[in-house]
């Protein structure tokens, strides 16, 4: 049975790329447009991993990670943050909030798949 990944990014083009890349590898992908949307969607189903951008309106990536870690259902779920080279301090904040790993934008689809395999198997 395939694993479900929650992908969170306010950029439609990135969301589409993530869905395309991961579905080809056999994962199920649920997309959300920001942290608030993500939390709503996470309530509905079993999610095996979360990939999230950090800069988003409403609830941003850091807040999302904090909210997820505080929820017993997501305490040990692997969470990957999408960061940019110029925002490495955000990456540290994400680590503090409990993120498992990170990918730097821009990234190639193969890099995304490698990280998912490394954290989820």
């Amino acid at each position, binding site marked *: 049975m395939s694993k479900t990944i929650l992908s969170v990014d306010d950029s439609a*083009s990135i969301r589409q790329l993530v869905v395309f890349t991961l579905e080809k590898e*056999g994962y199920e992908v649920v997309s959300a447009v920001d942290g608030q949307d993500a939390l709503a969607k996470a309530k509905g189903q079993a999610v095996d991993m979360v990939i999230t951008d950090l800069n988003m309106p409403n609830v941003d990536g850091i807040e999302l990670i904090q909210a997820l870690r505080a929820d017993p259902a997501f*305490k040990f779920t692997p969470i990957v943050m999408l960061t940019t080279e110029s925002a490495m301090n955000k990456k540290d904040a994400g680590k503090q909030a409990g993120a*498992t790993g990170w990918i730097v*934008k821009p*990234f190639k689809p*193969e890099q995304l798949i490698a990280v998912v395999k490394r954290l989820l*198997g």
Partner: protein
Amino acid sequence: MDAQKNLYREEAYELLANLEDALIELEQHPDDLDIVGRVFRAMHTIKGSGAMFGFDDIAAFTHTIETVYDLIRDGKLSVTQDIISLTLSSCDQIKAMLDASQGLETVSDERTVELTQAFTAYLPQEEGAPDKGSPSLEKTGDQADGQRPLTTFRIRFQPHKDLFANGTNPLPLLNELKDLGESTIVCHMKDLPDLMDMDPEACYTSWDIILTTTSDINTIRDVFIFVEDSSEITIEPVDTLATENLDAEYKKVGEILLERGAIQKEDLDKALKTQKRIGEVLLDKGVVDKSEIRSALAEQEQIRAMRKKRAAADETSSIRVPAARLDALVNLVGELVTVQARLTQFSAKKSDPDLMGIAEEVERLSAELRDISMGIRMLPIGTTFAKFKRLVRDLSNELGKDINFVMEGEETELDKTVIDKLSDPLVHLIRNSIDHGIEQPDKRVASGKPAQGVIKLSAQHSGAHVLISIADDGNGLDVDVIRAKAIEKGIISAETTLTEKEIHELIFAPGFSTAQNVTSVSGRGVGMDVVRSSIEGLSGTVEVHSSKGRGTTITLKLPLTLAIIDGLLVNIASESFVIPLGAVVECVELTEEGKTRAHGRHLIKVREEIIPYIPLRETFSINEGIPAIEQVVITELGDKRVGFVVDRVIGQHQTVIKTMGHMLKNIDNISGATILGDGTVALILDVYKLIQQTEYLEREGLQQ
């Protein structure tokens, strides 16, 4: 990629529109940090997504602007009239760059530089270099793999207690290391406290990994990049399998332990004085932990093995074994697995911890035995693929066609019986591609294709299956021709309406062939249906995807092994059945309410999807005791999802397949049987056939 570029452009144009609004608002309320946030995020997305989809000029330009707004966000800079004007001008510039990427306009590079400089003036003079902390997810230095010698590394992975707190799972990391080469992994459990004192959220284990690989140390370090802060990692090369070292004996266990600092020299000397084996002595004296010894021994063992392998590289070290002997072995393993299941069930009933411990070990060993014996029968499919090269060459010459034959995935392994039975069907499919698929070179050029056609034969693993596909960029299937021929042959009536996919499926009907001339190669009309039944005989499926004028791809999906599969054990009343787990995607409940909501039709709504189901009680005429809530096991074959209704889902079951006896072989929807731990028989359902049958019955109006 074009579609993605377009999507980005659309997104960017929209963002720019929002951005302009925000800037005008910001001009009125220069201290409103929310608006600043909106501006920052818009720039950030334009930059980030731009870089992703190849708009590097936009990404570079926006970078400086984003940095300025970051400073404003942090309160280090105030919004001024000048900044707003510059930003609005930049929006125009970005728009121009987007237009230019579509060929609509040219962009003034001087203007870009001018604006960038204007923004840079707002930045503090020392701008730090970007953090080098990004993981290099590319395999570093793998280009020279063939030349680099095998090196053995000693890797120690000691997670801190709080490893799991950030969602880390150490097992995929170990798997990633395993994929780099040959490895032995030893787990240290000496810090594991009693169950009563254990914190289930803490990590008490650490691992030693002895890895022999051609990868370099940075590739190994990269695996641990996310856990650097939450664990202790040491990686040291301990042996290079360069030829010079091969004669020297590898270090003795004591030396290894000494080197690692696990023991002191005095312990080593004292222990050596006695005659016992060093490991035993050190263990007896309590100087070192059992897992340390195991780890050191593993290192020694692995390196010795690697050296032996390397030394024997030129000699052939394989043995020919009569296939019958292997079959006997696999049979025995099957019997063993069955008895082991009984043992496990029995020990669970007896609740005797000693017995359960033994049963667990037997289970572990028989699983390993099963995997190894299944593995012995696996051969790379490349051996079969290779002989097709000649076939393609000869045939394309005979027919005057120019064909590039590409093979992929030759190292994919399959059970020997499966490979043997695949040969003929593959030959037929390739012949079809050459004969009917690829056009003559002049015809190809006339329709804008390169004169040389491509036939790609590829194999890859997919879960518990192997996917083999033959893809050509030739004619593709012509639905009109197929339809006409099918009507002519009486396979369908002239009034029947079919979808394009269904028309494609007609080529598998017995007696079908659209070849104008029966050539020496094909056209006898005995081909595709035989291909399909051969593949189905191997418990596989055949699918065709085709696009007129573009090409055809035939995909074969085959199970990895025919003898033992992972199954899902289910119950209907007192009968047990097994559904191959590889086909199962999920199980949901079927309540009275669910049934009435579908108005008596066999449909169930799962989240947003409507999925048809087959009520197995009806199929098998089982009438006793329906439970109030039934279970629907949802399977996925190709892109179709169909549910099967059962009473209870018991769980995963290692299923040793026994063929049905002579008399019962023709029952289509059962593909075999298995013996459960308590001695009863469970029938294994042929999901594909069941779906086919139900579709047939529905189409003929014999069922609801």
